[in-house]
C-alpha cells in the first residue's frame, strides 16, 4: 500500500515550554484519538510513547513547540517542532543516560537521559535535525501493518 494513500487523521497540538504541570497532556490526548481510530494497541502505545518523550523534551528545554500527528492506513507519523536552544551534539544526546537537564527537572524524575533513546527504540523510522540557538525537529514513524518485535 503506498504510504501517501489517504490521510485518516491529522492535527497539530501546541506545547508550552516550561510547564511541567500539564506535561503529558498532549500525548494523552493523542493516545485517546489513536485508540478511537481502532489502531492496533501496540501501534497506539508506541506512537503515544514517542509523542510523550517529544512533549517532555519541549517542556523541559524549549520555549514553545508543536506536535503534529498524521495517520495513514500504513503508518502514524508524529512530528515535533520547537523553538528552543537546539542540540549541540545529537549523537551524544541519543546516548542512553546522557542528559543536560537541570536539578529541578531531575528531581521530578524527568531528565533521565532516556528520551531520544526511547524514541529511537520505539519508532520504526526516526529523523532528527537541530540548530543550536533555534530549535529541534523530530520526525517519528510508527508503521501499522509491519510485524515488529516490539514488546510495549
Amino acid at each position, binding site marked *: 500500500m503506498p504510504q501517501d494513500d489517504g490521510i485518516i487523521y491529522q492535527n497539530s497540538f501546541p506545547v508550552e515550554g516550561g510547564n511541567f504541570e500539564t506535561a503529558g497532556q498532549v500525548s494523552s490526548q493523542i493516545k485517546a484519538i489513536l485508540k478511537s481510530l481502532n489502531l492496533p*494497541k501496540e501501534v497506539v502505545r508506541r506512537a*503515544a*510513547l514517542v509523542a510523550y518523550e517529544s512533549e517532555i523534551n519541549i517542556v523541559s528545554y524549549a520555549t514553545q513547540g508543536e506536535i503534529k500527528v498524521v495517520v495513514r492506513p500504513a503508518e502514524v507519523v508524529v512530528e515535533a517542532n520547537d523553538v528552543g536552544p537546539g542540540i549541540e551534539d545529537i549523537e551524544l544526546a541519543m546516548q542512553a543516560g546522557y542528559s543536560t537537564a537541570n536539578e529541578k527537572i531531575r528531581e521530578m*524524575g*524527568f531528565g*533521565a537521559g532516556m528520551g531520544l*533513546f526511547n524514541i529511537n527504540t520505539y519508532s520504526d523510522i526516526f529523523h532528527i535535525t537541530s540548530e543550536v540557538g533555534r530549535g529541534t525537529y523530530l520526525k517519528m514513524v510508527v508503521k501499522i501493518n509491519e510485524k515488529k518485535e516490539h514488546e510495549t
Partner: protein
Amino acid sequence: MKLKEIAKELDLKARAAEDKADREVRGGYVGDLLSDVMGNAREGQVWITRQTHQNIIAVADLKDLAGVIIVNRCEPAKDTVEKANEVGVPLYVSSLPAFELAGRIYVLIAKAKGITFF
C-alpha cells in the same frame, strides 16, 4: 493476581481509582525516572515509585500499566489523585520501602502461579 488482591495482602491504602484495580498484574517495575519507566515497564505491570507528582499518572496511562504504588508512606499530590481518578489509573500508597514492597509482590505473584521459594 489482581492489584486489589495484592493491595489487601500487603495492606496498601487506595488513593484513587480503586474500582479499576481488578486487572491481572503481570509483574512490576520499580523506578523514579519517568523515561526509564516509559522505556522499560510493560503493559499490565504495577509500578512502584517514590515520585508523587501528577506526571506519574500520565506515564502509567500511556503505558497501560495496572497501577501505581507510592512507597515509604509518601502521599500523592492532590492533582495526582485527581488525574488518576480522571483517567482511571489505580493509585495506592505503602508504608514499605521499594525493595521490600517489590520483593513481597514478586512472591505473591509467584505463589499465585504455583511457584514457591520459601
